[in-house]
């Protein structure tokens, strides 16, 4: 590891020092705690940054300035909001199913936290590198819907109930498309492990490697991932003009904060999985034979590459959100079952043909990519 700015230098140093002074079982225990704390902190900080960025970009799309009073350019606005939400009272609602009502936000936040832990943030900044990483991420991210359904059911409120049911229909539908789009790339990459997948994209991103099929899969993944986050034109579960706030109508204080956090983090998770799978993850841009260029690119730390690519995708998601009007429930399900899913199924077959007949860019131009 020659790169001086990588955080993995720090973690390697920490590991060797700890191993020098105590038995390896204790080292693993301490490191597990440290990783957990770091992930939780990153979770909160990223959520704060995302909330600020979202409010600013939203404002720019509407020809406003957005928050600009708390701190320079309003950068402390989301910190102030966080303090406020932590101090707010958790209102006790009469005649709710108390146990499920309190459990629901935890399902939501745990699901998004589990997914968050499996994301490769940079070289050596990868908490768990499963050999079935893609499958794992798809599986645990869909746990969040239990939180939504439980919240709607236990709130004993018709708006929450309708919101949760809509969310359920939407989530189940679009999870299918998102999974198929990821599977298309698994076919191309030949692996489900994130680290191998990223390494395989050193000279050619999966987005370009599978050309037509990859591009389609990328767009399909972005659309269905966007729909899974209950945002933008797909926000019927919390359509405030019809359902007050949808499934989290009855929640207040920190419990509401959990839903709020999870919503923003899901946006980040979708973008970061798309980055990892399609855009080469934390891998810097490398070109065959341009050694000087490659050297300069590697000097930029990998986590900067990762967050940069993710930020572009998040911006894209916000752009979509503020461009299109909300879909009706039948339009929403039409889009999934009549358009995205058939296209996806055909696309995965096309991808198999491309891979088997050696039509990927790496097969066609081995000297370039």
């Amino acid at each position, binding site marked *: 590891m020659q790169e001086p700015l990588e955080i993995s230098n720090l973690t390697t140093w920490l590991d060797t020092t700890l191993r020098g002074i105590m038995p390896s079982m204790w080292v693993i225990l301490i490191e597990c705690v440290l990783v957990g704390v770091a992930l939780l902190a990153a979770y909160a900080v990223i959520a704060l940054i995302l909330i600020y960025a979202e409010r600013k970009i939203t404002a720019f799309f*509407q020809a*406003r*300035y957005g928050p600009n009073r708390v701190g320079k350019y309003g950068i402390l606005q989301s910190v102030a909001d966080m303090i406020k939400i932590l101090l707010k009272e958790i209102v006790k609602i009469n005649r709710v199913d108390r146990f499920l009502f309190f459990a629901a936000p935890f399902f939501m936040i745990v699901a998004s936290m589990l997914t968050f832990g499996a994301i490769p943030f940079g070289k050596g900044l990868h908490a768990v590198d499963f050999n079935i990483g893609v499958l794992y991420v798809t599986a645990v991210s869909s746990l969040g819907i239990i939180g939504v359904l439980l919240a709607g059911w236990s709130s004993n409120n018709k708006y929450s109930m309708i919101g949760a049911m809509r969310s359920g229909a939407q989530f189940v539908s679009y999870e299918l498309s998102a999974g198929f789009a990821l599977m298309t790339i698994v076919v191309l990459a030949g692996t489900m492990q994130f680290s191998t997948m990223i390494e395989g994209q050193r000279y050619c991103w999966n987005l370009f490697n599978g050309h037509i099929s990859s591009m389609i899969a990328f767009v399909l993944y972005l659309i269905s991932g966007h729909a899974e986050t209950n945002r933008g034109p797909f926000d019927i579960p919390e359509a405030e003009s019809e359902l007050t706030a949808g499934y989290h109508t009855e929640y207040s204080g920190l419990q509401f904060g959990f839903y709020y956090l999870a919503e923003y983090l899901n946006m980040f998770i979708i973008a970061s999985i798309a980055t990892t799978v399609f855009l080469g993850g934390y891998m810097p841009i490398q070109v065959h034979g341009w050694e000087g260029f490659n050297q300069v690119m590697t000097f930029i730390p990998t986590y900067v590459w990762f967050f940069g690519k993710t930020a572009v995708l998040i911006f894209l998601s916000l752009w979509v959100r503020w461009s299109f009007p909300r879909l009706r429930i039948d339009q929403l399900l039409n889009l999934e079952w*009549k358009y995205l899913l058939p296209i996806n199924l055909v696309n995965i077959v096309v991808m198999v043909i491309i891979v088997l007949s050696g039509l990927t860019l790496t097969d066609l131009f081995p000297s370039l990519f």
Partner: protein
Amino acid sequence: MSSISKYFSGLFTGIKSLLVGMSVTWKELWTKKVTQQYPENRDTLVISDRFRAELTMPHDENNEHACTACGICEMNCPNGTITVNFKMVETEDGKKKKVLDTYKWDLGMCTFCNLCVLTCPSDAIKFENTFENAVFTRDKLKQQLNHEGSKMREKKKVERPAAPVAKAPVVSEVKVETPAAEVKPAVVDTEVKAVVPEVEVKPTVVDAEVKVELPIEEAVKADKEIEAESKDETTEK
């Protein structure tokens, strides 16, 4: 059109319209921000002239206003925001006259309906667009609009060459109260002669400023003034 081609044309027109929509918002992203940053932009702030923020009584350079203390604004105010305090003074020629003492306006009660300005017969008050009216105590919202030591602007005498005949019956209809004793038909010219004797005499009101030994123009002018003032009084009733 077969259903299959309909499906695909629908798909592609859908994608195209989505892209058009995104290009529109992309352009919107770079447009100039419309937000007015208020305390910072006070120097360049433009507030419409017609914005009604504060009732004022314009005074000229001689510290004179146009208010006759008639009280019409006070009567028309739906909220009782305006209080016109007047005093009766006696002019040199022994006539009593209403003079404005204090003109009170309570900003806190005002709904800025503009009825006072619309009904003012002398255009003595108007709404200004100075909108920064926030104060710390409610008492500060109660304002006195006439300046210290100000007085009413005397009306300019309107020049009119001769009294038209058609005008004459109108004067009598209004029942202008002029002291009968002072009116001497012999002095007044023939054209007015028909009018003045018919005037109903009410000795109680002595506001009229008719000077009997006047040439014709002066007399007609006097009539006109009587007419104007009596109009004020009738509205008051």
